[in-house]
């Protein structure tokens, strides 16, 4: 039995990821999460002296806090199975990645376990987030220096 024909058999018989349905549920889940975020942001603006710009920080903190509680209660993984990218891409997904790793590695102690592994999943988000921000800033600086665009 060679690998190619076997791969064909597998492609025929193995159930596919329901891409369209996943896109819809991701859209719905992501939309609901962002809607909740917007409501929280309005709350910070309405009840506290935060402007549109400054309210983003406490809003992110609150969303991560909610994701943390949901992760601890075992609800976020169910949301994740339903929503896929819709629950992974917003900041709550980042919170979930951090907190789930922390819970998982608590058994190895706080230094080597939690401390050493808390960014196991979220680490690449940070690394490539910082790196791509650097690249974009570099490109823009060059373009401004050349005179193509303004700041």
């Amino acid at each position: 039995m060679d690998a190619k024909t076997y791969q064909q058999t597998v492609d025929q018989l193995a159930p596919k990821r329901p891409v369209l349905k996943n896109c819809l549920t991701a859209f719905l889940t992501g939309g609901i999460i962002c809607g909740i975020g917007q409501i929280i942001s309005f709350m910070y603006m309405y009840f506290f002296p935060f402007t549109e710009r400054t309210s983003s920080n406490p809003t992110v903190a609150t969303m991560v806090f909610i994701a943390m509680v949901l992760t601890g209660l075992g609800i976020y993984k169910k949301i994740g199975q339903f929503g896929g990218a819709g629950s992974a891409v917003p900041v709550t997904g980042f919170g979930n990645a951090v907190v789930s790793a922390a819970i998982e590695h608590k058994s190895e102690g706080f230094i080597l376990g939690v401390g050493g592994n808390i960014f196991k999943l979220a680490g690449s988000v940070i690394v490539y987030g910082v790196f791509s921000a650097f690249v974009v800033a570099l490109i823009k600086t060059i373009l401004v220096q050349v005179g193509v665009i303004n700041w």
Partner: protein
Amino acid sequence: MKNARTYQFASKPSIVSTAVAVGPLEKQSPFLPHFDLVYDDERFGQETNEKGHAYLIEETCKLAIMKGGFQTTDIDLFLAGDLVNQMTPTNFAARELATPFMGMFSACATSISTLITASFFLETNHMERILFGSASQHNAIERQFRYPIEYGAQKPPTGQWTVTGGGFGVLSHYQSDKPYVHSATIGQVVDCELKDPLDMGSAMAAAAFDTIQFHLSQNKGTSYDFVMTGDLGKTGSAILKELIRTSGVSSYFVDQYRDAGAEFYGNNDKLLSGASGAGCSATVYYGPIYAELLKKQWKKVLLVATGALLSPLSFQQGESIPCIAHAVELSMD
């Protein structure tokens, strides 16, 4: 010797007692009446998942020994394995049991590979009673191979759920009222260059097909009550059926084919393709199947356990998933 991978045991070693223990989620299994111990705590009252895993192995082994009317000192050899790094749960359980011990790793096929090895040891007549089997604990295995338990990653429909449970038995010399090991086929590693660690059923089906085909070719004319694979799941068993159908090995076989992983949680779509893990085949083979053999409901079954021989490191480095399948033919006089 060309066909040495299949062997017929002249001494007919018998499985004299078995014990099966499972965790809380396994309560929804249709096999539940045949599980000896059902725990409400997936950590079995221990502080870590790995300690719970070791406790599960220890308690199940003790029960298997007790059900056979033996003491731990009667056991000449303890052959077992699990899926955690360096098999610490099994090693730690062996420390508590204080019997002669050899750890074995064949991934999820350990349930059968230990039984085959135990049969060979008994065939030499040097040993009297051998404790064999395997176990897995969902949380400990998932963190080893995939993501943290609480991480919200979406699993595809081919994904499988690692069983929390262990199945162990005591193998001894032939007893007419117990099921015995008639013959066995040792698998060879089959790699069809599949790389998706969330679709191991598809990868393992090729290995299962290879072993079944070889075993049937060496035992022509034997009729089985059924052939059962360990944890191919709904996806893998569908592929195995197709392979059997197109190759024409035995058209008879397709109707009599079952898969422990696909049946384990009933028809629960939330658990996707079905159950997997070293505990999946062990709990089903040494629980319900053994019980039905004892009752002489079935006379001859071919049990095939499949294992995906991957590590988190190997698939991250882009290696494909090599798979293995071992087969044992159990008979009841």
